[in-house]
């Protein structure tokens, strides 16, 4: 399974990668939302799940989410943010986010949610 993580916080980006890789997942990371979008568009790597921060400079996670949905609605997106304001989450879920993980991230929780989302993808494919 291939995951794409987008977060401008390099430490948490690295930490998520480390933890998820230990779960046997293949992880691609970027701190730049546009680059993340490019990876998805190129299609060189089949991405099964996207994890994205909401508060990022230049392009917010919400914008990224919207743009991903324009390319494909197949890939589930998990939103990660310290922002747990209802209205932001509502927008995210309206735009098709799959799930939400609050920062500071509890890695165990993240893994559970990622697995749950991946399971759903697997079910849809069969």
């Amino acid at each position, binding site marked *: 399974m291939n995951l794409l993580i987008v977060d401008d916080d390099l430490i948490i980006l690295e*930490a998520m990668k480390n933890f998820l890789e230990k779960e046997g997942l293949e992880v691609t990371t970027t701190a730049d939302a546009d680059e993340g979008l490019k990876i998805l568009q190129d299609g060189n790597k089949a991405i099964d799940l996207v994890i994205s921060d909401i508060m990022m400079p230049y392009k917010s996670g919400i914008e990224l989410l919207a743009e991903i949905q324009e390319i494909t609605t197949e890939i589930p997106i998990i939103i990660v943010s310290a922002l747990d304001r209802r209205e932001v989450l509502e927008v995210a879920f309206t735009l098709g986010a799959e799930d939400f993980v609050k920062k500071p991230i509890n890695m165990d929780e993240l893994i559970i949610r990622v697995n749950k989302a991946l399971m759903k993808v697997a079910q849809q494919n069969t």
Partner: protein
Amino acid sequence: MNNSEVIKILLVEDEWAHAKLVEVFLAGTTQLEVDITHVLSLKECLETLNKGSYDVVLLDLNLGDSKGINTLENLFENSPNASVVLLTGNDDERVGITAIQKGAQDFLNKNHLDTATLTKAVLYAHQRKKLQTDLAYSNQKLKEAQQLAKLGNYQIDIDNREIFWSDQLYKLLGLSTTSKASYRSYLRTIIHTDRSRVIQQIKTALKNIGEFNIEHKIKIKDKTYYVRNAGKTYFDKISKSTKMVGTLQDITEYKEAENKIEENRKRYEVIFNDSEEAIYVSTFDGKLKDRNAAFLKLVGCTEEELISLENAVNHFYVNNEDRETFKRTIKESGAVKNYPIQLKKYAPHGKATQDDIIDCEISANLWKGPDGQILGYQGLIRDITDQRRMEALQHAAEVAEKAAKIKNEFLANMSHEIRTPMNVVVGMIELLENTQLAEKQKDYLSSMKISSENLLVIINAILDFSKIEQGKLFLEKAPFDLHKLFEDLFQTFIYKAKQKNISLFKQLDANLPNIVIGDVTRLNQILVNLVSNALKYTNEGEINLKVKVLEESDKTVNIQFAVEDSGIGIPKEKQPEIFESFTQASDDTTRLYGGTGLGLAIAKRLVDLMEGEISVKSEFGKGSTFIFNAIFTKEVANAQKNDSSIKEKINTEIIPNFDTNTEIQILLVEDHEMNQVVVSDLLKREFENIKIDLAENGKIAVDKVKENFYHLILMDINMPVMGGLEATRAIRQLLPSPKNNIPIFALTAHAFSTEVQNCKNAGMNEFVSKPIKIKDLKSKIIKTLNQVMPKKTELSQSVVSSNGEYLNGNTTKTNGRKIMNDMQNGTMQNGHESVIDLESLRQLSGNDDSTLKTYISLLLKNTPDELKKLEEDTQNKDWEELSKIAHKLKGTVGYMGIKQIEETIRTVENNSARKLQLEEIPLQVEEVVKYCNLGLKELEKIKI
């Protein structure tokens, strides 16, 4: 009837043959179209009726489950509105009559049925039912209408003594519909004040042909209603009244509205008549239709005179064109508000003079008739002549005030401008005195010194005075020793007094407290002024200072000061003036004795500020006594104990406790070259081991602070390129710690308290006013250096010396606020206490040291840039960007585990995003930067 209408018939008949027959007969008609449902029993009949609606029920009374008239009764019980035609046999034909009484429409003998009879019966039954329904409907409507109109009707049959009341009438009278309608119960509801009148009117109505209309009040359950009884009496041929019909209507709402209108009318009449403002109604050709008393007053004309004028309104306009424009405006826009126009008073003989012209504002709207036709206009005139005059006066007053302000500002600026070069002069003289001089040169220099000092005194007086006039002078409140004040005062004058051979005495009240709280500088200023005046105008004899307690309470003490001399005195007529500014006893005095004439004026104002009064007693040629009192706050109860310590505080000279072998490094920021020399030389004389670096303006200063290390900055305020306040803010906000903590002293000739506040707000630590009193500057420098320089005795314990850290030996607990305060005082904790906590970062690394190391190096690499951006955005007030970078730093702070600022950085993020409490952000950012830098230093040292 409409042919297309289908009549739904329910046929209830237990004999098939009969039923079939009915169907056949009905099928034979062309007059109507029927839809027949046939049932065999009453039970079925009732069920069917409950399920659907039928226009006519053809009912056989003798069914299997019900016999006789009971069948009909049961049916009606179930469906009271059914339209029933009975089918009877020969034997029970008489039952038909009973059935009709019970509500059946008709009855038919089954044995004599034919198409025509059946058709007719069904049609009639159907139509009758319809009529009955319609009647019930219109009765219902009538009832509803009566309810809505709150109107009940009645009918009295006089011969038969029968009375009918509609339900609504009962309701109106508050009576139950089951009670008996009677004339008496009607009369009972009428309130007693109306009752006899109503009885009388009804009696009259009974006698007269035609309609009557009686309004009266009724009272029902303590509530009063207005009703109108309108009706008509009918008579028979012999003129005897037979019948009375009528309605009773509740007209309470209408009456109340009417009363209100009347009330309003009366109220407006009062307003109209008593109004101060002229109100009038006029036609467009100028006929005055109505006006109040104020109108007469406004135009200054009697009622008779007004009546005598044709098209009266036209007479009161100054310009006829104005009136035309005014009229056009009203016609076009329907109304005008505060329309400015000039009217004139009634001038029967000759032309109106300027005094007769009234400046007015008219508010008016169109006067329309009931059909909307325009009849004229109604207006309200406001006389604004006085207001106009007031405005003019006010304007004049404002101009005068502004002029006074400009004068004061001019004086202040002027004195300031003079004071700056004078600083140089005085400073240079001081320096010159310390060089090798010939005797003659020393004399000249001494004269120069006296003159320049005098000049400074005058300038200061002018500055003081303008400050007081602008309300910018505020009194200090600090404890001081009264006795010491008097001693110092006499010390000042003893030399001069000896020279003039005048004796100085003081008489102090035994009850005089030692320490009081007040403004010692200003009190001293008053006393110096009075004593020096006394000395100035006394040529022989003595000067006596008398001080006594006038009044004492728990908290305050009112002290009287008197300065008595045996001098030339002041003539009686001049005495009231001497406390005015620029006034002396005579112009000659000025020439003879010099002075600005401001001294006493300032003294008086200072005494005012001290809640006291100043006065003079004098006899020309025999000396003067100046007396003033002032109210001071008393020291708190334990003051006596602390007495010595306060004295100590007042007297003790501050001694350096730092290692004087360490070179003091000072940056002097000053654009004035002369001042640079003066201040440098003064400092070099006081401190042996001092290195003074110079910067000509704030910008150079900031650069130099970036490059070099200084213990202290002395900063001028007004400089080209970048002023002192701006430079201080730059140092405090833009430079990294610990450079941003360098103590900064303001050097300025502006001695206003607002200026002091500005300096403090910018982040300066001390304020030194020019001309520089070296003693003052020295003690302030030592006080500060005592905190930031390595200590004499503690040198070995001290962590850092001249490498740029402001540290001392104290261990401070890491409390955010405390550290802030300490830092502002120029001290900082020594680093033993750790601010960072890497637990969460360690967890993120999955307890993997090499990963943790990667994280730490990421933090070390990125955080300084983040901090820099945080500060820049703060400086640029770019709140949007600031909120973004603060968000990022929130993460960084979290990773470093700096608990003390987690809340602060969150606040910065939230408040900058929402633009709330922005004024607090710079300080919060400062705190964050400080802690982050501390954290980064700790991170650097971590070995994994």
